[in-house]
């Protein structure tokens, strides 16, 4: 018998990749939950507002697993999680919930799943912590805390970085890039979800997801720039980075809001918020041995991951 898997937030990058992976599994029957109808999905889908408990309850009935990939606005994330828990109470599906390494906030050093949840780096991190606390009351749940999910077309950690590297706005950042890039390939993330669903003993568990021996951000940028052919890599000084965080980021953010109101879509250059710039300095390493041990994960090697990601960017052109 196939397991029915409802993927909330299936229109996002991780949701889409997960749908692809699930539909390749013979024992899974995935259904995409989308906010808006999409013709490009190519999978069975339903369309409703996941923050509405009544709608959710209706769609959850008869479903074995719900994967929660909703990761956007903190309020939406909170409301949908509350709605999900309420709806799940009646028929009790397994919930695989995507949290984030952001729950560890500004902590440094080696962090396993037992490290305190600080969430002290903004509203997103804070919401993720709150939602994890809510989820704790539901026994049939798996919480995944991925690091930075990269892979072909990953908007945040591959495509955006690629654009910044090509524009020579990113490169070798010196001390500002000494932080650890807790990268995890999107295929490994999908594999973690599938393994979690298949292994009943994983219910109730929390897993960090990040590659072993992660590079520093500088090493990530240099290696990715080489894979992209965006060489020679530029050394970016502290003054330039300050300007990125304090001048370009707010200006581009305002522009993004203004452009969002226009009927046409415009492709604006990416920006690096002060929060992102502090992540590049943060000496935080996610310990993900538990995922290796209990989910049987073998992390994709960075070189292959970067090659695929660079190829995707090349083909996009």
């Amino acid at each position, binding site marked *: 018998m196939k397991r029915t898997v409802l993927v909330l937030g299936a229109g996002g990058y991780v949701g889409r990749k997960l749908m692809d992976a699930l539909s390749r599994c013979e024992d899974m029957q995935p259904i995409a939950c989308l906010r808006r109808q999409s013709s490009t999905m190519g999978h069975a889908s339903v369309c409703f507002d996941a923050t509405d408990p009544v709608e959710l309850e209706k769609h959850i009935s008869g479903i074995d697993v719900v994967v929660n990939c909703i990761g956007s606005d903190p309020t939406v994330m909170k409301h949908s999680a509350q709605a999900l828990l309420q709806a799940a109470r009646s028929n009790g599906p397994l919930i695989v919930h995507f949290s984030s390494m952001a729950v560890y906030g500004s902590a440094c050093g080696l962090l396993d799943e037992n490290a305190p949840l600080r969430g002290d780096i903004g509203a997103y991190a804070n919401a993720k912590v709150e939602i994890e606390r809510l989820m704790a009351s539901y026994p049939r749940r798996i919480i995944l805390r991925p690091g930075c999910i990269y892979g072909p077309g990953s908007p945040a950690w591959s495509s955006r970085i690629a654009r910044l590297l090509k524009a020579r706005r990113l*490169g*070798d950042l*010196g*001390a500002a890039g*000494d932080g650890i890039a807790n990268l995890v390939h999107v295929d490994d993330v999908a594999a973690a979800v599938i393994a979690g669903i298949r292994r009943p003993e994983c219910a109730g568990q929390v897993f960090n997801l990040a590659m072993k021996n992660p590079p520093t951000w500088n090493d990530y940028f*240099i290696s990715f*720039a*080489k894979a992209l052919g965006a*060489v*020679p*890599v*530029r*050394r*970016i*000084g*502290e003054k*330039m980075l300050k300007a990125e965080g304090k001048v370009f980021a707010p200006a581009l953010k305002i522009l993004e809001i203004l452009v969002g109101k226009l009927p046409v879509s415009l492709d604006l250059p990416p920006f690096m918020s002060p929060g992102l710039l502090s992540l590049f*300095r943060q000496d935080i390493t996610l310990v993900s041995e538990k995922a290796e041990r209990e989910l049987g994960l073998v992390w994709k090697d960075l070189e292959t991951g970067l090659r695929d990601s660079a190829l995707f960017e090349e083909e996009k052109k």
Partner: protein
Amino acid sequence: MISDARTLPDATVLQADFCIVGAGAAGISLALGLSQSGYKVLLLESGGEKEEAATQALYEGHVVNPALHSPTESYRQRRFGGTTTIWGGRCVPYDPLDFEARSYVPHSGWPIGYDEIARYYPQANRLCEAGVFDYRSETAFTRPLKPMIPGFDQRHFTMDTMERFSCPTDFHIRYHDKLSAPNIQILLHANLTRIALSPDGNRVTELEAKTLSGNGFSVRATCFVLCAGGLETVRLLLANRDVHAQGIGNQHDVVGRYYMCHIAGTMGGIHFSIPPASVWNGYDISDEGIYCRRRLALRPEVQKREQLGSFVARLHHPRITDPSHGNGILSALYCAKPFISYEYAKRLFEEDPVSWRDWCHHLKNVALGAPDIMGFAWHMLRDRKLAARKFPSVVIKSRTGLYSLDFHAEQTPDPMSRVGLAHDRDPLGMQKIEIDWRYVSQDVHTVKRSLALLQQDMADSGVGSFDYDPHNVEKEMTRYGAYGGHHIGTVRMGHSPRTSVTNSDCRVHGVANLYLAGSGVFPTSSQANPTLTIVALSLRLADHLQSLDFSGT
């Protein structure tokens, strides 16, 4: 944690596992190497976060022959970051041959082999921010490079080896955050003044330090490492004579001897007969963005056969001072002389006054070369002044195929070339140093013969001519005296206390817990600039210190 020793109550006693003295390339690399060890590391640094005149003046001393050596307070910086706050960033590894005992280089031979250091070079290269550890242009670059001198017969000199350039990385700024690790404490404005030994002289019991504000404190630790530079380390060892009457580690009068810098100069005129545009004397930028430069390096087998020290040469612009080069950029640089720091101006310009006729000629060059000068100024502004990774040096491409030869050669270790103490003292009561730098005939021979080989190779290859006056070689190689900023060999490592100060672990012979780091411990100078090897040796020392068994201490 980084704090200021001036705020410590007088006579405070501090405890640590390892106490490092000096936060320059050596001390900072060592502290970084120990940062994950879990041991408590205390780093004493004489200077503050910026240059301070009173602290810098503590480096003042005497030079026996000022024509041969620059003043003792120049070419080194007494501040957090040490001399990396002004260094040029040229990174070059030693070659395997440099570690061997060579019959034709007296007192040569290291107690460790190349492989011992090579293990640490990749990480050292990283700390120096010089990219991957690959110093051969053929393997370091995947794209084909423009040949340096097409058609040149490389039988004596190879054009494959290269130099890589650091940003240049100021170790203070770059590693400030990393040095804030919880197990590292850095005390600024802390000047080591006394090394206290146990009555039998076999152990350091504590260090005493003073600030220029008048307070003093002491440090007790399991191990102590002096990283105060190749000159100051000598001063600290010789100034402490209460237990060992000749100074620490100096039972056999070795401390301060064998003092080497490098032998360097600019020589003659190279006139290429091949098209000038086909000659490449500039930088190649690696994919990681590192400036790399190829040079002519005397092959190891030729060194052995000809019994020469190591030697490298680069194609250089003609002598700046002489306006007959007709180059507007060079003449403009001459006019900008007052704005260039002593350390960098010294080898660019000569001391001799320039006649008014030459001045006029320089001004004419400037007037005629105005468009080139504008381009050069823009390049220097964009790629050097404003760039985070700086274009390393002035490179002028000759339209006529005319160059001079800039060389850098090994200096032979000689016990008569030495650093000692003078009678007068600094404001902290420490005896000042006195430098008596000397070179030997083997050094002249290395340069003379290498130049002759190069001259012959140029002619035989039919690429051009190299004209110089062989009688002038000694004069030219000592025109600016000892190469500044490289302080090598003064506390050399070796097997025997009769001929060396430390053993192969950099521990002072006969003192169980006193170690030295920096180019002072190098037994030979190679042609290579020292800092990359200083950093590699410090990382090796960090590993050694962590491997020690401290139970029972």
